[in-house]
């Protein structure tokens, strides 16, 4: 089974400085598959600076990897012909964090829907284009008569974000990369956007890569989850066991930090080092989480932990699980599907 998109041993280093070169490793030898097979929602979770947005941009073809390959239907993205590139552009759609930045204030919101219709020649007439736009808007739960013909400032952030979801739907893609689609929207409007994303998945069979730092929404919308820490995957598996019973100390910290909407369920007292050493931990060799990890062992600082399979479809990169069988990178890749 080939995946629609695949990262194979991808490393991305951002360099800066003209004379004195220095680099930030955003992704460190990561392999992951997205799309293909049964349409699923994969959540990609991690803190700021974990490389989750870089991963999204690589999959969208907006960035090229420093080393490794991004494969689209088994073919290197960089080697696509212009025709293949067009299909790729249609198959893989993006939804970004800031709905206000997507719209040109001088155009009506219709523009965002019209451009792809023209570009991919989806309609033969104006009337047909209009019908397509209306269908897409209804598909995400918006009323076309209240949306079309308006300017961006006349709609709320939640409505604007749903129009971008409608735009993605218009093209009937096979994969949508949604980078923090609800983090700038009010909590009360988040539900509607998540609902329309899930509808896209269930009714239209579109796979979704949901990039977020918010584990509660990841849990609710995701089928499987990949946890990133400083450019490396640390835990991967089905969303239920990972969130309810996290195994990697970093995932445990993330789950313990969720602010539950319940005054009787306060943040538990966890080990302070993990919480407070944020931004300071920079380990050159070994596990990247070692400096913050409450369960650190000498071996963690010596070499990078490989993935251990702790359940049939779950892997953790942590020496605490060294009794479980090791699992090769190619197999880990498949777990996200």
């Amino acid at each position: 089974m080939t995946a629609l998109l695949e990262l194979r041993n991808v490393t991305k280093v951002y360099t800066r400085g003209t004379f004195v070169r220095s680099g930030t490793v955003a992704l460190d030898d990561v392999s992951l598959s997205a799309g293909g097979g049964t349409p699923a929602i994969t959540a990609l979770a991690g803190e700021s600076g974990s490389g989750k947005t870089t991963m999204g941009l690589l999959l969208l073809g907006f960035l090229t990897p420093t080393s490794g390959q991004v494969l689209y239907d088994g073919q290197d993205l960089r080697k696509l012909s212009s025709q293949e590139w067009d299909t790729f552009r249609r198959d893989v759609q993006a939804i970004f964090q800031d709905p206000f930045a997507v719209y040109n204030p001088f155009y009506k919101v219709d523009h965002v829907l019209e451009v792809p219709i023209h570009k991919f020649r989806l309609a033969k007439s104006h009337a047909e284009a209009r019908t397509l736009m209306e269908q897409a808007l209804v598909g995400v739960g918006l009323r076309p008569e209240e949306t079309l013909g308006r300017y961006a400032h006349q709609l709320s952030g939640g409505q604007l974000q749903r129009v971008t979801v409608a735009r993605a739907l218009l093209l009937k893609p096979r994969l949508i990369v949604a980078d923090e689609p609800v983090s700038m929207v009010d909590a009360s409007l988040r539900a509607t956007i998540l609902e329309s994303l899930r509808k896209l998945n269930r009714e239209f069979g579109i796979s979704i890569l949901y990039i977020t730092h918010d584990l509660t929404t990841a849990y609710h919308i995701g089928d499987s989850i990949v946890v990133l820490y400083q450019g490396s995957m640390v835990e991967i598996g089905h969303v239920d066991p990972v969130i309810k019973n996290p195994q990697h100390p970093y995932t445990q910290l993330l789950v313990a930090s969720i602010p539950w909407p319940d005054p009787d369920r306060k943040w538990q007292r966890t080990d302070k080092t993990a919480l407070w050493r944020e931004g300071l931990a920079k380990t050159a060799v070994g596990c990247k989480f070692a400096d913050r990890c409450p369960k650190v062992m000498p071996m963690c600082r010596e070499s990078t932990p490989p993935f251990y399979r702790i359940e049939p479809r779950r892997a953790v990169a942590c020496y605490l699980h060294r009794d479980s069988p090791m699992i090769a990178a190619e197999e880990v890749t498949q777990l996200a599907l």
Partner: protein
Amino acid sequence: MNGYVVQVENLKVYYPTSSGPVKAVDGVSFNLGAREKLGLVGESGCGKSTLALSLLRLIKPPGRIEGGRILLNGVDLTQLSWDKMRRVRLNQISLIPQGAMNSLNPVMRVRNQIMDGMRAHNQSMSRQELEARVYETLELVGLERNVATMYPHELSGGMKQRVCVAIAISLRPQVVVADEPTSALDVVVQRQVMETIGQLQEELGAAVILIGHDMGLMAQFVERLAVMYAGRLVEAGGIREVFRQPLHPYTQLLISSVPLLDEKGVFRGIPGLTPSLLHVPSGCIFHPRCPQAQDTCTEEVPPLVEVGPSRWVACHRHEVER
């Protein structure tokens, strides 16, 4: 003096526009006890940031405080001269503004930025005192001494935000107003910043007003919660009571819109949109979105009434019960 540090009475803050005033804060009253942690929750555009700014009289023209009083230790801030107000800010009441961490000066060391605020609001401190206070304050927010000589780009998001908290508490105010202090931060850093503020609140004995839209954060941090909708308060009460038994339909929807771990895949939004503050609906401001609206709701404005010990709600359904 009845033990309240801050008493806000019928505060009105309007922004005049060509089509009439935008009533961002329209008759809000509340009290804040010493050492109390009060939450103010509402959707974007409900006037909560305007309220935060007006507590320090930082509303920029053309916006202005149209009426009401803000008493800080019994002194009406709305009547103070600009000069006196300047001495109140940071000394007695301070603000952690929204997106504060992006407001740090990129070409200035952290130490100088903290000293800047202290110098501007308190001329009586000597350089030695200022410097000692910088290190003391950094320690309070859990940052190491060497952070003082760093530039903002050398710090992570959480550290920058803690520098902003340090600036806000540098003169040990009695009241700290935190306007969405963690809105751009991820969960781990959010928790770290909130725990910093909580610790300070205990150590310095300050009262905190936390403004935001995240009910989860409110449940974790505050003791009392006030719910704001379209420029008015619709409900107030102890955090446990509000969560256990929300009285106003808006509060009920707000609480049920937060996803829980126990019911996977259930999304509940609040239907409709926040009203434009230029054309506020007649009667109860929430009636166009309210699932339980009755005829009276479209006509009469429900007053904010006390339905239990320090439990307030503005809803016709609870007026009847009383």
